């Protein structure tokens, strides 16, 4: 590959904690090769240098929570040839989407001394609700190996290997003993999108669902099972209302238990 026309990469931040873009910086060993293959043209977290667009690849972190951001994402889309969203905020609205279930004005009046200064939308929404997205990389935070895989796949013009099946498959491949069957610990693994490598069960904890719903999640059967083992509606609701609370199937299931 000639290094003269290296593709230009931009990293954009919306409402988020920065954890996902830090995954890119966290790729220390690989970062040099990334920088050799790609021109990092816009990545405020890493460098002050800003090159003008258009950009071949934009990685977008964060959700849309303000009118300004709703406009800005349109601009980002305009200057991006390929736009990939990274992390639960960008793909599902993030933990901040918990506001979507409540009245934001009430929060604002309680939290801020001068609510008048706050200009915020009623909902935190994923990027794909605003602009066309070419690929979504799940996770809260994303897995850095998967991020490198997505960038490598982009460079090689191939499909990334980021399977959408259950986390249980990763759990079993890894050789972990199922915490739900052997310990009675509730685990979201069966309905959660793979990607983390089933970390929590390997530490004898249930999966929290950081990667959001898998390809065909049967959320109601999961809830049914927990109910039988004594979980209350409120507990079940809370299990579904975390980082991916606004992802369709998780949201719908939590609403069923919102009484």
């Amino acid at each position, binding site marked *: *590959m000639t290094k003269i026309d290296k593709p230009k990469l931009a990293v954009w931040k919306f409402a988020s904690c920065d954890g996902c873009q830090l995954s890119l910086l966290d790729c220390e060993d*690989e970062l040099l*090769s*990334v920088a*050799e*293959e790609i021109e990092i043209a816009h990545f405020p977290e890493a460098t002050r240098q800003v090159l003008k667009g258009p950009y071949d690849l934009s990685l977008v972190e964060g959700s849309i929570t303000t009118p300004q951001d709703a406009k800005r994402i349109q601009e980002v889309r305009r200057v991006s040839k390929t736009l990939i969203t990274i992390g639960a905020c960008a793909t599902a609205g993030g933990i901040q989407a918990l506001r979507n279930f409540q009245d934001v004005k009430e929060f604002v009046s309680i939290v801020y001394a001068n609510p008048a200064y706050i200009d915020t939308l009623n909902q935190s929404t994923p990027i794909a609700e605003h602009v066309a997205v070419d690929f979504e990389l799940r996770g809260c935070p994303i897995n850095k190996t998967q991020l*490198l*895989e997505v*960038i*490598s*796949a982009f*460079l*090689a013009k*191939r499909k990334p*290997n980021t*399977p*959408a*099946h*259950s986390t*249980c*498959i990763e759990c*079993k*491949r*890894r*050789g*972990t*003993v*199922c915490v*739900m*069957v*052997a*310990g*009675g610990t509730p*685990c979201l*693994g*069966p*309905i959660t999108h793979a990607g983390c490598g089933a970390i929590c069960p390997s530490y*004898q904890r249930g999966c929290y669902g950081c990667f959001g719903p*898998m*390809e*065909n*999640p*049967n959320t*109601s*059967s*999961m809830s*049914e*099972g927990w109910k039988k083992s004594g979980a209350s509606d409120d507990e079940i609701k809370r299990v579904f209302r975390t980082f991916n609370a606004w992802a369709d199937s998780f949201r719908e299931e939590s609403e069923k238990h919102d009484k």
Partner: protein
Amino acid sequence: MSEQVVLERNDLNGLFTVLQGQGYTVIGPTLQDGAIVYDELTSDKDLPEGWTDEQDGGIYRLKKRSDKALFGYVVGPYTWKRFLDPPEKRLWQAKREGNDFRIIPENEPPPKYAFLGVRSCEIHALAIQDRVFLEGDYRNTSYEKRREAALIIGVQCVQAGGTCFCVSVNTGPRAESGFDLALTEILEEDRHYFVVETGTDQGAKIIDGLKVQPAKETEVAEADNRISHAAKNMGRKLNTEGVRDLLVQNHDHARWDEVANRCLSCANCTMVCPTCFCSTVEDVTDITGEHAERWQKQDSCFTMDFSYLHGGSVRASTRSQYRQWLTHKLATWIDQFDESGCTGCGRCITWCPVAIDLTEEVEAIRKSSSLESVVQSDKER
């Protein structure tokens, strides 16, 4: 088969010494994270002495036994296939060389495993996987090398688990062949010993290095007794009569919708099944594009990618995925390999997070077979 011998409990560690002396890595049962799994053992101290497992649909619990049995459990979540066909393995690498590339094959010498504690249903599962991987046009060469090098030390079941049904499918509880050695563990008031059967010359060579006595008739009878006891205490049963036709002819049965309401498509049943053989390949390139690798990963018919053809997945619904699994195991496997794909080990029942039980599903379809289901789907139309 040669004469049976008796090995006293206190001399069991000699088996480890002999095996290690012959260059074997001993793999067998051991406690890990609340279950008995197969892993590398260094001595008899690693065995799950005094533990047993209680199993039912979606439930597995370790329990203390009142005695010091070493093999007093049934089967755990993992199977020997993990060691013969690892769930993730690199098939080859490639390096770019100018406008061409060079393939770097995997040349690691196969590990030499001695599997200790292989149950009768598992010996049948090995035979089924041999058929899948070694017969036919395309051989799984890495499996072949590992399998050829492996030593099988069976353990005869003297108790059955809550989800076992080997008797229904004729795979146990007694292992008749397919082992190098087979132990039956006997605990009496004041004695703890093993009756050992020899299946191969390789097994006989190992016996030569052990401190054994010829087995007395009473000891052999006692072993038989205990195995028959297991046969009478199966936790589940499966009526296999005409099961192939039953499933194949009931593709539209309403029961598939009912089970799909419960099934999570999580794939645990296929991942724990000792005969499931499906895998996918992933090609990966690195950032520079100079280096590529092909990996084989254990896969399942419960994923969308599994049946993805141009334009979409053939089996996109949970209903069709569950139907594929059950029908393949018990029916179309017979068309494909002239035998059933189920050994009655019960793992898919125990390790299903929502306790779906294939024996129950088959029964439900049998009870309300074809006619009713036709009426049902007519109504839906």
